[in-house]
């Protein structure tokens, strides 16, 4: 089967990779680009550990064909920090202890980043915050601290450094 050249932009950088069309977006990100922050948990669209943002919208990269992202802009957890500084939600996760084993964290950060950017300044309810991470499983069950971190950013407690 013939390989294809895929051009896409990841965390602001242009890449060209030479892939079989069956290659998943998660495989391109981890195996071809070496960006291993994105995790593969269940590989069945269930756990959300592989969440990345495509054109600002969260998707589960274990179940998206990379070749469908031709010309699109992808953001992974490595792309959240700007000029060496952590983003607001990353700092809020640190301050609120929103990590236990850390495996779900990249996916949680990507889902909450998309959610916060879609809010456009509106203040979400706790229910809306919980819904925003419904596609992400934390197997340590540390949801409350994650919800607190998202809420802190939504309430405007963090500023861009």
């Amino acid at each position, binding site marked *: *089967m*013939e390989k*294809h050249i895929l051009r896409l932009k990841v965390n602001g950088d242009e890449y060209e990779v030479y892939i*079989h*069309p*069956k290659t*998943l977006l998660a495989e391109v990100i981890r195996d071809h680009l070496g960006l291993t922050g994105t995790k593969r948990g269940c*590989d*069945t*669209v269930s756990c*959300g550990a592989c*969440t990345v943002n*495509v054109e600002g*919208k*969260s*998707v*589960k990269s274990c*179940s*998206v*064909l990379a*070749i*469908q992202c031709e010309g699109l802009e992808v953001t992974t957890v490595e792309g959240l920090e700007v000029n060496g500084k952590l983003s607001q939600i990353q700092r809020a996760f640190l301050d609120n202890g929103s990590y236990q084993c850390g495996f779900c964290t990249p996916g949680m950060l990507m*889902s909450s980043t*998309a*959610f916060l950017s879609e809010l456009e300044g509106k203040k979400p309810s706790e229910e809306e915050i919980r*819904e*925003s991470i*419904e*596609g*992400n499983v934390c197997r340590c069950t540390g949801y409350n601290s994650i919800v607190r971190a998202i809420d802190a950013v939504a309430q405007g407690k963090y500023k861009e450094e």
Partner: protein
Amino acid sequence: MINDFHYLKPASLKEALAMYAQHDDCKVICGGQSLLIVMRQGMLAPEYLLDIKHVKELSYIKFDDKDGLRIGATTTHREIEKSDIIAKKYPVLVAMEQKLASIQTRNWGTIGGNLAHADPAGDPAPVLMALKANIKFGNEKGDNTMPLDEFFVDYFETKMDHGDLVLEVHVPAPEPKFGCAYQKFNLLDSDMGIVAAAAAVTLNADGTCKEARIVLGNAGPTPMRVTKAEDLLKGKKLDDKLFAEAGQIASEEAQPVADIHASEEHRRHVLGVLTKRMLKKAFEQAQKAA
């Protein structure tokens, strides 16, 4: 492990239909949120995969007071969920989408792909059938529109032949004195329904039932209407006793199978309860509606 395939990327709908007609062992991918799972399980291993995700002509939401709602096949679930006009005119569709899988899946998965996949546990079909939706599909030679009621044939099978693509879903304009409700029964909000029920009620000016529609999800090989229960309600002044009777009929008419999630008996019971509750909810909405 996904088997290798040749990748076909048409630039337009016309090209997509031509490519599909030319390749025999070919499957269509749009969001692939269902397809990639079955391909990974090795249940499908097509030689060609036709990618229509970026066929822009099929991505739209249009509404007209007379014509109703038209949703293009490659419109994502999330676009439906976030549509102001759908929230205003067909709130039940937004409520359904909010509980369909996860945000990530809704961001990439499409309405056409969901319906073409024809999983009897899918959420959109029962609601759309309750709303009297039509589906348009077509191939190189022409297209075909039919009520969604008639579209599903069996588990994961539809009336579409090789070469056919889902093109559009059409929902008629909302009627006066109309209500529609949907609920699935599951353990996690973002899961597929163990069973589900949609109900729609239209009332006459005197408050009696003009028409009722009841559609069950994951209660058999296809989403199924319970016409026997619908007929019971027609022309009557609706009350809790009738809703319970309709629920009982739905429970009896359903053809659920047992699996790891629930026994057949349990499914029948829940289908009865959901039918009763959704009818009541739809009825109360219809009473309040203009």
